[in-house]
C-alpha cells in the first residue's frame, strides 16, 4: 500500500503543470513568498488586505498601508519605496491605486466571480477541462434576520442559475456517475452561520431551529432541481448546531428521497474519529439515496480554535502538531473509504501525500477511481486539480463567489493558509524534495 501510494504520488507530481507560465500568478506568488519569510511583514500584509474593502478612498487605502508598513522593522526595497511615496497626497493616490489593484488581483485568484451569473462562464470552462465545481457564496457575517434571509435568497438564486446553465454542458462521464449512480452537475456549498443570526455555542438548538427554517426550502429546491447541497463545517462553536441540523433535516420524511447532500468532517479535531463513526452509523442505518457525501478536510480554523481555547484555559479541541492532523486525516480516509457502500467519500486536500494515500487505499481495497471524489480550493489547488484530471480522477473545485467586501474574511484565511510555515503548499513552494513531501506523517 505504501509502495502504491509513493507511485501514485510521484505520478501526480509529474503531471503538475509547470509553474511560472503565468506572469501575474508569479507576481502574487512572489508577494506571498516575501510574506511567508517574515512574520511582521506577513501581519502587515494581512491587515492591509483585510481593511481594503473598508477604505473610503485610494488615499485612505494608502494611509492604512503606510501605517501597517510603519510597524515592520525591515522592509524589502519595494515596500521602502512605497513608504516614501506615501508622504505626499499624489503619491498616496498612486500607491492606493497600485495596492488596490494588487489586492483585487489576489482576490480574483481565489474568487471565481462577483455573482453566480458571472461565475457561469468560468465554471463551464472548468467543466470542459474535466473538473466539476462546488459554488460557495461569500458573505459578511450574519447578525440580523434580514441578512440571513438575503443569504438564503442568494443560495436559491445560485441553485437556479446553475441548474439553468448545466444542461448545456458537454457530457463528462467521470464527473457524472459513480457506483451509486448519478452525481449531480450542480453543487452548492452553504454555511449554517450565514443562515441564522442566532448561532450560540451555549444554546445550539436556537440557531439550529432558526437555520432549519431557511435550510429546508433550499434542500427542497435542490431536490427538485436534482442539485447537490453541501453543508460546510465551521468552528467548534457551531459544530453541534451544524451536525444536528443536517441529520434532523435529512431524517424528515419530506426530504427522504433527496436531494444529494453532504457534510464535512474535520480531521484536526481530536474527536473526529468518533464523529465520523457516528456519521457512518447514521448512513448505514438510514440507507439514504442518494448517499450522503462526506467531505473530509483537515480543518480551516486551527488558529482560532487554539487561541480561543488558550484564552479560556481549555484543552484545544484540535491536534496541536501538524503531523497528528495528517495522521488523523489518513485514518479517517480509511474509515470513509471502507464505508463507501453507504457514503460517498470526498477527499479535500492540497497535500499530495494525503491525496495519494486516499487514491492508493481506495484502489488497494478494490474501489474504482470513480468512487472517490477529490476536492480542491480554487486558487490554491488549481495545479493539483489539473494533474488529477490528467489521471482521470473525479475532481471538484470549490469556487467562492462574491464581491471583495463579502469575500475578505475568506481571502485572508486562504492567504494565511498559503503562507503558513506548516502547510504542504508552503513546503512545496520552498522546494522541499518529493521524497519528503510524500513521507508518511
Amino acid at each position, binding site marked *: 500500500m505504501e509502495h502504491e501510494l509513493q507511485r501514485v504520488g510521484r505520478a501526480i507530481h509529474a503531471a503538475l503543470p509547470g509553474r511560472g507560465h503565468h506572469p501575474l500568478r508569479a507576481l502574487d506568488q512572489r508577494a506571498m513568498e516575501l510574506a511567508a519569510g517574515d512574520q511582521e511583514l506577513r501581519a502587515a500584509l494581512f*491587515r492591509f488586505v*483585510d*481593511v481594503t474593502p*473598508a*477604505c*473610503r478612498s485610494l488615499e*485612505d487605502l494608502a*494611509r*492604512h498601508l503606510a*501605517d*501597517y508598513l*510603519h*510597524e515592520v522593522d525591515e522592509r524589502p526595497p519595494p515596500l521602502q519605496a512605497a513608504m516614501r511615496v506615501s508622504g505626499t497626497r499624489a503619491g498616496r493616490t498612486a500607491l492606493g491605486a497600485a495596492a488596490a489593484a494588487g489586492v483585487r488581483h489576489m482576490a480574483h485568484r481565489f474568487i471565481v466571480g462577483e455573482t453566480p451569473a458571472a461565475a457561469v462562464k468560468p465554471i463551464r470552462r472548468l467543466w470542459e477541462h474535466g473538473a466539476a465545481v462546488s459554488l460557495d457564496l461569500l458573505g*459578511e*457575517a450574519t*447578525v*440580523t*434576520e*434580514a*441578512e440571513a434571509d438575503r443569504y438564503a435568497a442568494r443560495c436559491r438564486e445560485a441553485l437556479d442559475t446553475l441548474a439553468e446553465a448545466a444542461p448545456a454542458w458537454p457530457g463528462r462521464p467521470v464527473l457524472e456517475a459513480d457506483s451509486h449512480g448519478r452525481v449531480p452537475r450542480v453543487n452548492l456549498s452553504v454555511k449554517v452561520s450565514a443562515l441564522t*443570526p*442566532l448561532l*450560540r*455555542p*451555549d*444554546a*445550539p*438548538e*436556537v440557531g439550529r431551529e432558526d437555520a432549519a427554517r431557511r435550510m429546508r426550502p433550499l434542500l427542497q429546491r435542490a431536490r427538485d432541481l436534482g442539485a447537490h447541497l453541501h453543508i460546510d463545517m465551521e468552528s*467548534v*462553536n457551531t459544530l*453541534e448546531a451544524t451536525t444536528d441540523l443536517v441529520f434532523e433535516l435529512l431524517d424528515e420524511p419530506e426530504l427522504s428521497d433527496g436531494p444529494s447532500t453532504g457534510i464535512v468532517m474535520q480531521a484536526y479535531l481530536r474527536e473526529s474519529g468518533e464523529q465520523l463513526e457516528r456519521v457512518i452509523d447514521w448512513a448505514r442505518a438510514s440507507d439514504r439515496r442518494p448517499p450522503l457525501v462526506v467531505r473530509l478536510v483537515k480543518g480551516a480554523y486551527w488558529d482560532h480554535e487554539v487561541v480561543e481555547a488558550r484564552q*479560556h*484555559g*481549555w484543552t484545544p479541541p484540535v491536534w496541536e502538531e501538524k503531523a497528528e492532523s495528517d495522521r488523523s486525516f489518513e485514518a479517517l480516509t480509511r474509515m470513509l473509504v471502507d464505508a463507501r457502500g453507504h457514503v460517498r467519500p470526498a477527499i479535500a486536500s492540497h497535500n499530495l501525500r494525503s491525496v495519494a494515500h486516499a487514491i492508493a487505499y481506495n484502489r488497494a481495497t478494490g474501489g474504482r477511481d470513480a468512487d472517490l471524489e477529490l476536492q480542491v480550493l480554487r486558487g490554491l489547488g488549481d495545479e493539483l486539480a489539473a494533474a488529477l484530471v490528467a489521471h482521470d480522477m473525479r475532481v471538484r473545485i470549490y469556487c467562492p463567489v462574491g464581491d471583495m467586501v463579502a469575500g475578505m*474574511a475568506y481571502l485572508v484565511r486562504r492567504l494565511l493558509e498559503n503562507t503558513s510555515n506548516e502547510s504542504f503548499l508552503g513546503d512545496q513552494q520552498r522546494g522541499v524534495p518529493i521524497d519528503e513531501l510524500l513521507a508518511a506523517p
Partner: protein
Amino acid sequence: MSFANEPVLELRRAPVRESLLEGLSALDARLPLEVPVLVGGEAGAAAGLDSTDPGDPSRLVARAGRAGPAEAAAAVEAAERGSGEWSSRPAAERARVLSGAAARLRERRLELAALQVRECAKPWREADADVCEAIDFLEYYALAAVELEEGRALVQAPGERNTMRYVPRGVAAVIAPWNFPLAIPCGMTAAALAAGNAVVLKPAEQSPASAHALVEALHGAGVPPDALALLPGHGDAGAALVADPRVHVVAFTGSSAVGLEIVRAAAETPDAQPHLKRVVAETGGKNCVIVDADADLDEAVPEIVYSAFGYAGQKCSAAARVLVHEAIADTLEERLAGAVAVLRVGQAERFATDVPPVIDEEARERVAAYTAAAAREGGIAARAEAPPGGGSFAPAVLATGLPESSPVLREEVFGPLLAVTRVPDLDAACDIVDSLPFALTGGLFSRSPGAVERVVRRSPVGNLYVNRGTTGAMVGRQPFGGNRRSGSGSKAGGPDYLLGFVEPRVVTENTMRHGIPVE
C-alpha cells in the same frame, strides 16, 4: 508570579450544560437557604431580609438576617480583636488559607453558579465566570501578598540601611454589590485579608446567599471567626460601618451616588479617630464604544451587542453608548438594530437567553423611565420584547438620535439600553468621552494603528478595549477599575491593588559606630 486563571466551563459541550442544570435542580431542592448575621463566630437569626429570584418573585432564594448599626458596631469590635492575631501571621500562612478557600469554592462551582442564576438572575456563562473570578482573586492576592511582604528595594548609601515594608491597616469594611455576587465581595475581602486586615463584609441586600457561601469558604479554610464577619442587611448597616472610627479601610463597589456619600462620610475624622480612613472605591460608568470608519462591523456588531446586553447591561463595564463615524453610521445602526431585535429576553436559567431579567422592580422602573425618555428625545431603533410573567423583565432597547444633553446619554442606566450617537470624526468621539464625568471602560473598533494610538492617548478610561467587547476583565490580565468619578483608580486583580489595604513603613538605621560602618 505563577498565576493562571481558573478555566471557565466549556458550555459549548452538551454534557457540561447538563451538569449545570442538575446543579440547579439540586439547589432548588434546598431553597430557601439560611443566611445568618455572623459576628465573632456567633450566628444570629436568619430572618428579616428575604432574597428572591428576579425572574420569579414567588421563589424565595434565601432568608437572611438583617444587620443594623448595633450589629455593625459589634462586628467592628470583634474585627479589632481578630485583626491582631490575623495580622501577626506571616503572609505565606495567610496565603495558604486563602488558597484553601479557593479550593473550597472550586469544589462547589456548579452549585455556586446555580445560586447566582437564582439569586441574581445571572445567566450561566456569566455566573460561571463570576465563580472563576472569585477563585482567581483568592489565588492572585494570596501570591501578591507574599510578594508584597518582601517590601521594596531602596537606594542604599554607606553607613545606613534603608528598608521599606508594608503592614496591614487594621479593620476593613467591605461593602459589595449584587451584580458580581461572589467575585466582587470576594475580591475586596480576599485583598484585605491577604494583606493582613480583619474584614467586616456587608453584601448587597439582593445577594446575601452568595456572600454567605464566600464567608463559609474562608472560615472553613481557616480565617479566624473574629477576622471575618458577615452582615447581611441594608444601607444602614453599611453606613454605620463607614462612620465607625475603628474602621481603617472602606472598600466599596457600587453606584456612584453611594460611592460619593462614602467618600464624604469617610473623610469625616472625629477627634477620637487616630487615623485617616482610606477608601477603595469602584463606582459607575457611562461606557462608550467608538466605531471608526474602517472598523470591521462583522466583529463590532456582536461584540457591542454582548457588551451592552449581556447580563442585561448590569455590569459596571457594560457598553452604554456607541459613538460611530458618520461614514458608516447607517450600516452600523441597521445591523445593530437587526441584532438587537433578535435578542431573546428570558429566564437566566435558559441557555438560550441573551438578556435575563434585571435585578428587581426598582431597576425595571428605572430602565423603563430612561427608555421612555429615549423614545421622547430621540428614537427607538430596535427593541426585543420581554416575555410576559412576573419577573423583572426589561426589554432590550437600541436608541438613536438623542441630543447630547439627554440624561439617557449622560447618566448611568445600568440596564439593557444602548444609545448610538453619530460623530464626524474620532476627535469628536474623544471630545464626548472627555465630557463625561465617568471614566471606567471604553471600546474602540478601528483597523488603523494611527487611530488606535490617538484614541489611546486621549482616553481617560481605566480600561480601554480595542477591537473587542468592553466586559469580561480577567484577574491578572486586565486589572480592572475606573478613573474620574468612576473610582479611586485602584485596579482590582492587578499588581497594585493590595496597596490600598496596607500602610507603607520605612526604617532607616544608622549602621555607623564610632565612625566605622558595621555591617
